């Protein structure tokens, strides 16, 4: 019973403002790597705090590892690991001291569960006497993960673990999560980075406190209703403007090197209007990414 379930969870902090989360329901199965994907302010942290018993929901029910988040909060606190979004270890304690402190706090020792954190900890080992405040961003994240794992939690909550971490460390971090999954730990991770979504088994797209879609990343991209084209030209900003003015184009979004567009007509291709554009373009059909789906759902 390492699963997590939410049923119509709602929470608002200020009655005059829209609720932080509203009518959120989803389930995470045993041993799943579940991603909560959404921009800043979407309500990810609020949901995590409700699930980790730090906040009380206004409405709805939630269960973590078979325990009610309100009634059995003490039990939940023993069984989950939580890594808050902000780096939350003691900056003036060394790597070793931090780890020992949290191990003891959870009534265990570093040695007892060393196999679980070994892969991560070996990278920290050379710095074990260094104070946590003096570590690099990626190292801090690894230490925080070690501390959250040290008591072998049943469910692990990671709130934006890769925010503020360099690209290499980010992928390393996801590799670690995949390894942890094999230990049977259910992992809930939130991230504003859409490119990380495909690394999860199942994702929930969240925007303004509401869940827009819950499915596997594959199923979500497969459900994209239109054909998607990527268009490139010399002058990208001019292209963007003329595409926006074009009545055949349904949506345009700038995606770095290319603009992603969908057309009003289901069967057309950009060839239908290339002659009407003031510049030469290059186009191709592409598979939609999670970000395309997210933007599509936001505007829908």
């Amino acid at each position, binding site marked *: 019973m390492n699963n997590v379930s939410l049923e119509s969870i709602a929470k608002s902090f200020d009655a005059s403002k829209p609720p932080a989360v509203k009518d959120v329901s989803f389930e995470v199965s045993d041993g799943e790597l579940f991603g909560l994907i959404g921009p800043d302010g979407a309500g990810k942290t609020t949901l995590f705090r409700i699930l980790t018993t730090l*906040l009380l929901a206004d409405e709805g029910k939630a269960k973590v590892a078979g325990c009610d988040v309100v009634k059995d*909060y003490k039990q939940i606190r023993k069984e989950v690991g939580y890594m808050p979004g902000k780096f939350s270890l003691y900056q003036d304690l060394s790597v070793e001291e931090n780890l020992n402190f949290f191990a003891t706090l959870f009534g265990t020792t570093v040695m007892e569960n060393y196999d679980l954190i070994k892969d991560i900890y070996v990278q920290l080992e050379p710095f074990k006497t260094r104070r946590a405040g003096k570590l690099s961003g990626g190292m801090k994240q690894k230490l925080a993960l070690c501390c959250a794992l040290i008591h072998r939690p049943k469910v692990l909550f990671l709130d934006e673990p890769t925010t503020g971490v360099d690209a290499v460390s980010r992928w390393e971090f996801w590799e670690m999560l995949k390894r942890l999954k094999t230990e049977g730990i259910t992992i809930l991770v939130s991230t504003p980075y859409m490119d990380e979504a495909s690394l999860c088994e199942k994702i929930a797209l969240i925007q303004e406190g509401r869940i827009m879609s819950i499915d596997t990343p594959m199923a979500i991209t497969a459900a994209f209703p239109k054909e998607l084209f990527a268009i490139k030209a010399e002058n990208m900003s001019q292209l963007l403007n003329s595409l926006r003015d074009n009545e055949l184009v349904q949506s345009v979004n700038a995606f770095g090197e290319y603009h992603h567009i969908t057309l009003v007509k289901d069967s057309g291709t950009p060839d239908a209007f290339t002659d009407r554009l003031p510049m030469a373009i290059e186009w191709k059909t592409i598979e939609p990414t999670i970000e395309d789906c997210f933007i599509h759902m936001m505007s829908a």
Partner: protein
Amino acid sequence: MKQLFIFIKKEFKHVFRDQKTLLLLFGLPIAQILLFGFALTNEIKDSRIVVADYAGDGASQQLIERFRQNDSFVLEQSLLGADDIDEVFKQGIVKLAVVFPEQFEKSLIHEGKAQVQLIADATDPNTATTLTNYAQAIMRDFQVSYLGTASNLQIEVVTRNFYNPELRGTTNFVPGVMALVLLLVCVLMTSVSIVREKELGTMEILLVSPFNPLMVILAKAVPYLILSIINLTVILLLSVFLLDMPINGSIPLLFAVSTLLIMTALSLGLLISNSTNSQQEAMLISLMGMLLPTMMFTGFIFPIENMPVPLQVLSNIIPSKWYYIIVKDVMIKGLGFAAIWKETLILFGMTLFLLVVSIRKFKTRLA
């Protein structure tokens, strides 16, 4: 138990690794004791005086000699006309002038009395009063020895100052500084240390752990209790060996009541930290909310009896007021528990109340 122990150990590490905290914790009390003990005293020592001696006879010379030998005064000039007095006062160095009229000795012998004029610089009225009192005392002594007590029958008032015969300021200041320092340091330290966990975000992790949140309070209080008792020892050692302050009463009793005050302060600190969300806020409340009332209402700077009634009533809620009374009784008067049980009970009641409120206010969740 193991959890509590490692938590307390962690708290000690926080203190010892932060030089600023350490300085505040141990530097502040020492600085205060030294400041109040030496610099900010209202005792009169080495005050400069001038003498205008129009008599120039034996009696006036003898009296001037007595002034010269007194510790309180330094004779600046002695041959001076009355007109010059105004001039030296304006320079601000001289605080008192003694003027002997002509025929001083003659009138003293023949009439049995003579006049001496004391002119004081009363820009600081307290100093002026104290100085003239000292000078009068010297002259009374002189009169007695010069004329002999039997020569004229008059009632002489003999004042004896109990517990502090030399009217030394330190006897007043040391208990006051003890109250001030213990209260300030403890309130500030505890309030900041809990809020720091909130600010850092570590509170979130602590809450999502099997560790009982009330243990957080205990773990935070224990290190500062121990450090404050060390602090108290330092203050007492400084006042005994540096300021020659006696401890007339029982030392264990003094430590016991001080521990009670420390606990009052710790509970107050916990209350502040439970009601604030940033270290700055906590620090501001602790400093502003504690410093001024403690200074004002403890009674060691401004006598509470002289305040308007509403302020006198208000002073009752200041813990240091009661502690100050207790410490004066124990340390200076050497009284036992029987004399201070009432104040101790009040302090104990305050501690209990603050502790219950702060524990009730302690949130086991974030909001």
